[in-house]
């Protein structure tokens, strides 16, 4: 219970600064603005999943005729339904972005039925034609493409050939990232292994630090992660003097020495497109997906520890992924129990539906999905 009562000084100061700015900006409103509601499951300044969305929302705030309303730390329960209703009823929001995966079913679907004139777009990619209402939709990015590039850099820079991956839960979205990262590393050094550790939940800072430290003790020299906030993993690794690859957003500030690169979301691309469309009277797309090519995901700028030759290698791979000539998942691919998961001669494009239910770790990953 203790952590329910703590308050980050940065959070409060940030709030104060924001409040001051709000007072200055909220003066003139000649035309009725488009009100866009954002809901985050964690704090807006988490250096991770929620910050990636909040940074994009901040860009929308600067657009003329757009008003953004935000709520943070809204749990995936009836609270998010009430937050959406409150934004619609009290603030006049007509476009909702509930950004956490668990907001979709039943919460967002329930509200969409209740408010048929409001457009709901959910981050996670669950929308299905014919099954879900037209005023709902989903958007998502193929961030495993960016993870593959992180893997190339990590595999090239690692001296021990041992990489580490701190992950929340063994769900398809996470497994894709671990596997893509490992395959990228193996593309430059086939002997590379990735130690995967699952903490069990999206935000468990103590376990994340323990996992990172245990990897350091095992000789891992590049670590990355898939948890809501990579802050703890990146800072712990930097203190231990090993390299890091970021996730969700840019964490270079947290690890000026060891930060190599990272897989980042680029939500502003999607949000700006949708909002501009709405202002012209077009409903946003119902099923919006893309990767590096569409600009929905990107990589962090290389850190000082990445040599020029490695940068060239990763840039070449990025160009090949964008042009479609480099499939990440191709046969023959074995999982780490020896079963063939993609037969020889087969290669999957990134949109392949089979990848959406991935339930294995590829050969070279140390760890188990259950």
């Amino acid at each position, binding site marked *: *219970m203790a952590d329910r009562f703590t308050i980050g000084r940065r959070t409060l100061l940030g*709030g104060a600064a*924001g409040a001051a700015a709000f007072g200055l900006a909220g003066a003139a409103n000649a035309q009725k603005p488009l009100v866009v509601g954002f809901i985050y499951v964690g704090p807006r300044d988490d250096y991770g999943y929620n910050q990636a969305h909040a940074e994009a929302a901040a860009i929308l705030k600067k657009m003329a005729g757009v008003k953004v309303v935000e709520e*943070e730390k809204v749990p995936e*329960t009836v609270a998010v339904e*009430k937050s959406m209703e409150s*934004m619609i009823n*009290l603030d006049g929001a007509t476009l909702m972005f509930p950004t956490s995966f*668990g907001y979709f079913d039943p919460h967002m679907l329930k509200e969409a039925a209740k408010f048929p004139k409001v457009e709901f777009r959910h981050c996670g990619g669950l929308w299905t034609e014919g099954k879900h209402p037209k005023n709902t939709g989903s958007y998502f990015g193929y961030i495993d493409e960016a993870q593959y590039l992180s893997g190339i850099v990590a595999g090239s820079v690692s001296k021990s050939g041992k990489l580490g991956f701190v992950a929340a839960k*063994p769900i398809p979205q996470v497994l894709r990232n671990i596997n893509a990262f490992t395959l990228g590393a193996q593309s430059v050094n086939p002997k590379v292994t990735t130690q995967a550790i699952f903490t069990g939940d999206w935000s468990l800072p103590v376990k994340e630090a323990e996992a990172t430290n245990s990897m350091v003790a095992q000789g891992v020299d590049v670590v990355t992660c898939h948890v809501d906030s990579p802050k703890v993993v990146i800072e712990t690794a930097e203190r231990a003097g090993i390299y890091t690859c970021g996730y969700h957003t840019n964490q270079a500030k947290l690890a000026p020495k060891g930060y190599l690169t990272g897989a980042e979301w680029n939500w502003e691309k999607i949000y700006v497109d949708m909002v501009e469309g709405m202002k012209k009277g077009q409903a946003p797309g119902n099923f919006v997906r893309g990767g590096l090519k569409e600009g929905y995901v990107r990589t962090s700028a290389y850190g000082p520890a990445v040599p020029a030759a490695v940068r060239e290698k990763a840039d070449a791979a990025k160009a090949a992924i964008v042009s479609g000539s480099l499939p990440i998942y191709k046969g023959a691919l074995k999982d780490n129990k020896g079963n063939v998961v993609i037969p020889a001669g087969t290669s999957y494009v990134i949109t392949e539906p089979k990848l959406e239910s991935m339930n294995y770790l590829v050969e070279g990953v140390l760890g188990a999905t259950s």
Partner: protein
Amino acid sequence: MSQALERIVVPILALLASAVLFGLLLAIYAQVDPLEAFALMYQGAFGSWFSWQNTLTRAAPLILTALCTALPARLGLVIIGNEGALVAGGVAAAAAGVAVASAPPLVVQVTMALAAMAVGGAWIALAGGLRQWRGVNETISSLLLTYIAIALMNHFVEGPLRDPSSLNKPSTFPIGDANMLGTIPGTDVHWGLVYGIVACLAIYVFQRFTTWGFAMEVIGGNPKTARMMGLDVGRYVLLACAAGGAAAGLAGMVEVAAVHGRANASLAVGYGYSGILVAFLARHHPLAIVPVAILLGGIGASGGLLQRRLDLPDAAVVVLQGIIFVAILASETFYGRLWKPKAAA
């Protein structure tokens, strides 16, 4: 007379003191006009029919989880494992609901409620039993049992009970739309609110008008005296813990049957911990639990508006809750001092 008055006046003074403190914090630290903030909070919590429904929806689970602390407190026990009982009850309810999903909805719902109450009750009775027969501190054991309950929930939801189609958010199979509890007619508020209020009334009657209720008060006053009088203390400890756990378990069933339609990690969002706060603020009185839960539900409901209109962080309302909690605990020392018997006479 003066005593009854104190019971009303002291908590109100404590709430006013909290409001002043919180207002100062807003004005000095966050540089927000406190009056504007309080006006917004009122608007968000009680300012309209929509706001009232928002508040009541948030209050509903807190009433039931508060009983998990309040009932054993009558015997002098401090149980804080509410979250664990809720989670265990929720998983049991989902498992039972899926098992009998094809039966008529009423049968499904009653089965779910019974399963949740049985498992939730057993969960807290475990802490009570450890206390009674093994001398284990019930506060610590009930807290640790919560961690076990959440770990078990994750195991069941990601393993034996998992619906394979729940890819990125592991969940049990859904209980089916027909079996959902629905809302109180004419409102947006689910039936959990009614369950909570009925439970509080029933427990008040039980504590006030039955010999068992009286026996519990005697034990809470002095367990040694109670034993000398021939009361079976262990039986009452188990009973109170089981009843409290059953209430929290029922809250878990409501989450499954009225909100999510299945069990998953969203069961553990802190209703149990907030319930501890409600119980202490209500001084473990079953009738006081309802208004206190509504007050806290209202604070929660208004948090969003503070974030959106004043750009305050979510932590603002958590800070207010913390201030209220400390103020109420500190105010206990004023009982019997506001009105000296002589002055009253």
